């Protein structure tokens, strides 16, 4: 009995030792890999040459009205002047649940661009929101709450100003609505969006 316990304990110890070794060997690489990916995502909307601050570090979390999940906002600056606000948000209103997207907003309130980060929409229909699959997502570039006016921020199937993906009205509307909510948050917080202190700690993993 004692010997059995000893064997089990020894094997457990060996497993723990092996795991801590591998953890130590991969830890830094995993962290830098995640950082690199986060930055690559952000750089899709704001090229590296357009800002000079630590984009990943210059971020804070906030609640955007209408979106249940806490949003992470990144700020790009050049010589301390605001260049862009990048909002990493999740909308629960997709056809198959959460859609995670990145919305870039120019300091004057115009959309720089929108990218889909994660989704489970129907392949062939709703997944056309991805830039790799169609140009639909590009229509947000240059849009603001003035152009088109806030009440026209809906899919054209529902009387709005934005194109609708065929057979994916729910998906389209979820994205349109989420972008509008980011712009609405920004217009309400325009004065302090670039003044809020950055949060420290490990970067969240977009």
């Amino acid at each position, binding site marked *: 009995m004692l010997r*059995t316990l000893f*064997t089990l304990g020894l*094997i457990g110890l060996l497993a723990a030792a092996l*795991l801590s070794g*591998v953890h130590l060997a*991969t830890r830094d690489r*995993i962290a830098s890999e995640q950082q690199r990916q986060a930055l690559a995502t952000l750089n899709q909307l704001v090229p590296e040459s357009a800002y000079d601050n630590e984009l990943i570090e210059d971020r804070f979390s906030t609640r955007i009205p209408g979106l249940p999940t806490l949003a992470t906002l990144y700020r790009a600056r050049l010589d301390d002047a605001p260049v862009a606000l990048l909002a990493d948000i999740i909308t629960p209103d997709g056809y198959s649940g959460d859609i995670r997207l990145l919305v870039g907003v120019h300091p004057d309130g115009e959309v720089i661009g929108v990218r889909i980060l994660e989704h489970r929409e*129907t392949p062939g229909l709703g997944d056309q929101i991805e830039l790799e699959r169609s140009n639909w997502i590009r229509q947000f570039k240059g849009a603001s709450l003035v152009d088109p006016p806030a009440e026209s921020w809906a899919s054209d199937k529902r009387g709005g100003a934005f194109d609708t993906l065929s057979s994916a009205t729910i998906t389209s509307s979820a994205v349109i609505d989420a972008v509008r909510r980011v712009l609405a948050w920004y217009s309400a917080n325009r004065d302090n969006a670039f003044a809020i202190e950055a949060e420290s700690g490990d970067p969240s993993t977009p």
Partner: protein
Amino acid sequence: MSESRREIWKQGLWNNNPGLVQLLGLCPLLAVTGTAVNGLGLGLATLFVLTISNLAVSALRGIIRPEIRIPVFVLVIATLVTVVDLVMQAWFSSLSRTLGIFIPLIVTNCTILGRAEAFASRRPMADALSDGLAQGTGFAAVLVVLGAGREIVGRGTLMADAHLLLGDWARSLEMSVLPQETGLLLAVLPPGAFIGLGLMVAARNRIIRSRNARTRAAASTRHQTA
């Protein structure tokens, strides 16, 4: 190759294939096979875990008393899977995001515990090694074939995103087999996985049946001429 070694490979690849005959590990098998590359990625990870776990279990078989064998097997398998998960996150991070939850889930793949219990814990290490390689290859082959079939029918491509697994040179491996518009959406969705696997099992049964019929026919001809 010795007789028993050949038999082990025959079992793993065809007679007792984990995917087509034992029907073990169906959850990852059905879930990740949307493309050939995803299938290959999970197949290789499973092959690796299965081989090492077979080796470890076989090496430990002398000192493990029967009462503690299941906890030890689970510990060995869980450790190996965690190692694979960490290594993939560090060096194949985009693939690890695609396969996501299914790497940790290899722990629950009954094939691995099944081989540890049914084979590796009773056989010398050399046999356990062959069995791990053979069963793992058999499982990976089913994943790749099913993934390739679903990818061709559903998206019209083959080996899309190969660079996530094999590096940048592999971008050229991607082929368009059918024009995209003809893609049958169903194949990529979960029902396509069940239908595809069902067709593969049926095809295997059919091959076996026609082979048996031929052997019988040959035997009866011999009988008549004798």
